[in-house]
């Protein structure tokens, strides 16, 4: 349908340009993407780029540094504390993620059954996740306190230990303690997401498998687990990324101590850059996290790829 456009002498050219712009899908599309692009550039690309740039300078707080190429990284290569932080971060991430996955899956399987007060219990499970990290970290600080720890108190009353445990004072204890706190905080995310995945598995598949002669373990092994794999890949990627970049828990509980035993790359980076004023070196530590994160993402990229059985056809 072409409507007769009223002719306005002298202005017809401008009007039609505006009208053409208004109806051009490419230009409109660009226009609509602009806000998102600005946000991404301003708050993601710029800080990331600035961080990488800073890691190649000898900037200090309050001064402009010189561009020194990879000197910071060369220096870090010989820094034992940096390598300790890398080791701590890997240990922290791997141990916490595996345990979070195991316990989270177990919790999800339990919650997927018919339980009394199901909705209420599910809400409670989410609690550790909705409490601000700093609050729960302070609570854990008390739990792990060397003199007032309720855990030590309870264990002593039960006669299991003679002496209060120095949770955060001993390197190995401190590592185990911060990992435990991270697990407590991370389980709800894993459990609730896996629960959502479990609920998409049709009950009749389990019934069919039961009639086919599968035991509960075989149903889990041959039905639940393969159908849950795509969701497990997503959840564990996010869980690994969150854990690897964790800062708050450590900063409140141990500040990296004792003897740097709980220093993660994130906390070390902060400590060197802000209290230590060595902005360039801190940025270099942060930049050094990028290869690890990319590796984790690549893992999930291949894990996330659609399985062959998910291809083609309608869903029903």
């Amino acid at each position, binding site marked *: 349908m072409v409507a007769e456009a009223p002719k306005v002498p002298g202005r017809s050219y401008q009007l039609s340009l505006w009208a053409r712009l208004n109806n051009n899908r490419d230009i409109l599309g660009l226009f609509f993407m602009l806000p998102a692009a600005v946000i991404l550039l301003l708050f993601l690309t710029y800080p990331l780029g600035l961080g990488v740039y800073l890691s190649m300078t000898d900037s200090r707080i309050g001064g402009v540094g010189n561009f020194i190429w990879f000197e910071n990284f060369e220096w870090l290569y010989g820094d034992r504390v940096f390598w300790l932080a890398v080791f701590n971060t890997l240990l922290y991430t791997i141990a916490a993620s595996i345990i979070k996955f195991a316990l989270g899956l177990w919790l999800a399987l339990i919650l997927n059954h018919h339980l009394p007060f199901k909705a209420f219990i599910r809400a409670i499970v989410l609690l550790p996740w909705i409490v601000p990290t700093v609050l729960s970290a302070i609570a854990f600080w008390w739990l792990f306190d060397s003199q007032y720890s309720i855990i030590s108190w309870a264990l002593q009353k039960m006669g299991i230990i003679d002496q209060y445990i120095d949770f955060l004072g001993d390197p190995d204890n401190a590592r185990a303690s911060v990992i435990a706190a991270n697990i407590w905080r991370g389980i709800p995310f894993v459990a609730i997401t896996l629960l959502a995945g479990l609920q998409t598995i*049709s009950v*009749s*598949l389990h*019934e*069919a*498998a*039961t*009639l*086919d*002669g*599968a035991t509960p373990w*075989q149903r889990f092994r*041959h*039905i639940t687990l*393969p*159908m849950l794999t795509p969701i497990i890949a997503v959840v564990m990627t996010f869980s690994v990324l969150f854990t690897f970049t964790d800062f708050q828990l450590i900063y409140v509980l141990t500040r990296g101590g004792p003897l740097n035993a709980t220093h993660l790359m994130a906390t070390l980076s902060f400590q060197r850059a802000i209290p230590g004023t060595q902005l360039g070196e801190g940025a270099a530590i942060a930049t050094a996290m990028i290869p690890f994160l990319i590796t984790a993402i690549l893992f999930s990229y291949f894990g996330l790829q659609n*399985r*062959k*059985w*998910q*291809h*083609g*056809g*309608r*869903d*029903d």
Partner: protein
Amino acid sequence: MAAVSIQKVFKSFGSTEVIHGVDVDIGDHEFVVLVGPSGCGKSTLLRMIAGLEKITAGEIAIGNVVVNTVPPKERDIAMVFQNYALYPHMTVYNNMAFSLLLARAPKAAIDERVREAAGILSLTPYLDRYPRQLSGGQRQRVAMGRAIVRNPQVFLFDEPLSNLDAKLRVQMRTEIKLLHQRLRTTSVYVTHDQVEAMTMADKIVVMRDGHVDQTGTPLELYDSPVNLFVAGFIGSPAMNFIRGRIVRNGGAPSVRADDGTDLPLPPDAAGEEGRPVHYGVRPSDLALTDTAGVETTVGVIEPTGADTFLYGTMAGSEICAMFTERHGFEPGQKVRLMPRLDRVHLFDGESGQHL
């Protein structure tokens, strides 16, 4: 293969009783259809045979063994689900082989049985496909293949055709019937579609509100329904019902409809003077006459080619008549229809039982 016996079976979910004492005897090799409206308990009954639901009271026996406490996998039954319940992450081959793999059957035996079943169901070209890559009818066949390879004592079908389009449904109906004629496995088939029941069953069990209303061959149910519900449920289009009272008139009894019209009855019709009844006559048992019969106002004519359906008003009630010959009626035209007296059914006005 085995007979299935259901004795005084009750089922409650919490405090709600949904099946109130059902008895069904299913003979060896028989194809029995449980049919009824939604919520009548037919699927629950089937799931109790399968062992997916507990039996609250009563007894279910498969091949003379009471299976009330036997777990599903030891009942030696196979079930075809309404949504097929195919394992989406397994190929057609593995879907069919799964039960045999779990039973640790030898690889060669599994392969032989899967390929044999695939051959019967013309699924051989699709063995390496995943369920998502199949059409509805093919998925349906895989679901049956999964049941066949197990060579079970009893096949259970839970509304297996309701997800298919009309044409495919008719085709699969025939395929299932052929399959049964070939394998002779005792089958219990649940559907809400009375046409499916009529066309497939050796024996139909009509259920309503957790009771069995009537059991019999398709034609027994069609010719001698025990009550108003079965009469209205079996047969398509449904039987016409007109409310009225019996008038004995000496030797020529009739039913006087609520609007005063007399509907003819055979001389030996049951029922005493004045008894309120439903007068039932099937659309195909109404014949066009010139003088006798009951005046009917034509509403709508539906020529379907083979048959002509007349929807109109007879004695104040909406009725349908079916003719195999073609007629050119006009809406509003008055015609006279004569019920075949030997096929007229009378049902009690209150209980709905056949007189």
